[in-house]
C-alpha cells in the first residue's frame, strides 16, 4: 500500500486509484495498413518493466481523472506525477 499524489486532489491512499497500464503508447496512424502481428503488438504487448515505468492511473474513487505517473515497479517509489497531455519528465 502506498500514497499517490493526485495532480487534482492531492495525496490519497493507493486504494482510491486504479492502474491503467503503460503510458505513452501511440496509436498507429494507419491501422488498416498494419499486419496482424503489428496490430497485436500495438494492442496487447506491454513492456512490464521491473524498474522505472511510465504508467496511466485513474483516481477512480475521487475526482475520476486520468493522469500519468512514473513509478518504480520493484519498490513502488513514485518519481513523478503529471497530467494527461503534459510532457513526460526526463529522468
Amino acid at each position, binding site marked *: 500500500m502506498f500514497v499517490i499524489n493526485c495532480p*487534482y*486532489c*492531492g*495525496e*490519497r491512499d493507493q*486504494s*482510491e486509484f486504479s492502474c491503467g497500464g503503460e503510458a505513452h503508447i501511440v496509436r498507429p496512424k494507419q491501422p488498416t495498413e498494419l499486419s496482424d502481428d503489428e496490430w497485436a503488438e500495438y494492442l496487447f504487448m506491454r513492456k512490464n518493466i521491473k524498474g522505472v515505468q511510465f504508467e496511466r492511473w485513474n483516481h477512480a474513487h*475521487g*475526482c475520476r*481523472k486520468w493522469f500519468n505517473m512514473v513509478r518504480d515497479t520493484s519498490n513502488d517509489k513514485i518519481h513523478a506525477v503529471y497530467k494527461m497531455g503534459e510532457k513526460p519528465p526526463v529522468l
Partner: protein
Amino acid sequence: MLNTEYPISEKKSLDDLELTISEPIKKINIRGTKKEFFTKVGKILSIILPTEPNTSSSNQQFNALWLSPDEWLVYFNEENNNVYNDLFNEISKLNFGSIVDVSNQWICININGKKTFDLLSSGSSFNFNNFKNTKNSVTQTLLNHTDVIIHHTEINDINLFVRRSFSEDLWLWIKDSARFI
C-alpha cells in the same frame, strides 16, 4: 436499498454523535468548462463555483461542492423546484455544459458530534487531520469500501453523500460502528 419513501425520521443519537438521514433534498450534478457556463450558473444560483480542489461554496440556499476540475455537485432544499429547470434550459439545452438531476442517486446522511471524525477514520484511509479543521472542505473517498462525498459544513458536522444502492449497507455500518467509537 433504502426505502424510496425516504426514512426522514430515521435518527440515531449516541453520546458524542448524532446520525440523521437528511432527505429529501435536491442534488444536481453540473459539468462544464465554458465561460458562458460559469456565468449562467453564477446568475441562476447566485454562487461562484469553487475552482480550488476539495472546497465548496455556499449561500443561504445552495451548496456547491467541487468534485473535479469540470464537475460540481449542487444541493439544496426541495422547495426551489424551478432551479433545475432554469439550469437545464439555460445550460444543457444551449450546449454550454451538462446539468443532471441526481437527487435520487445520492442519499445524504448528516453526522455531527465530537466523534464524527473518529467514526469516519475507522472506515477510511483518508487523512482527516487537515480536513477536520477546515470548514467547507470537501472530499471524495472510500468509507467502508463505499464511494462517498463528504462535505464539512461546520466543525464536527458533515453531510455525507452515498449512492442509493449502497446507502442501506453504509447506514447500517455507520450505526454499528458508532457504538464502538
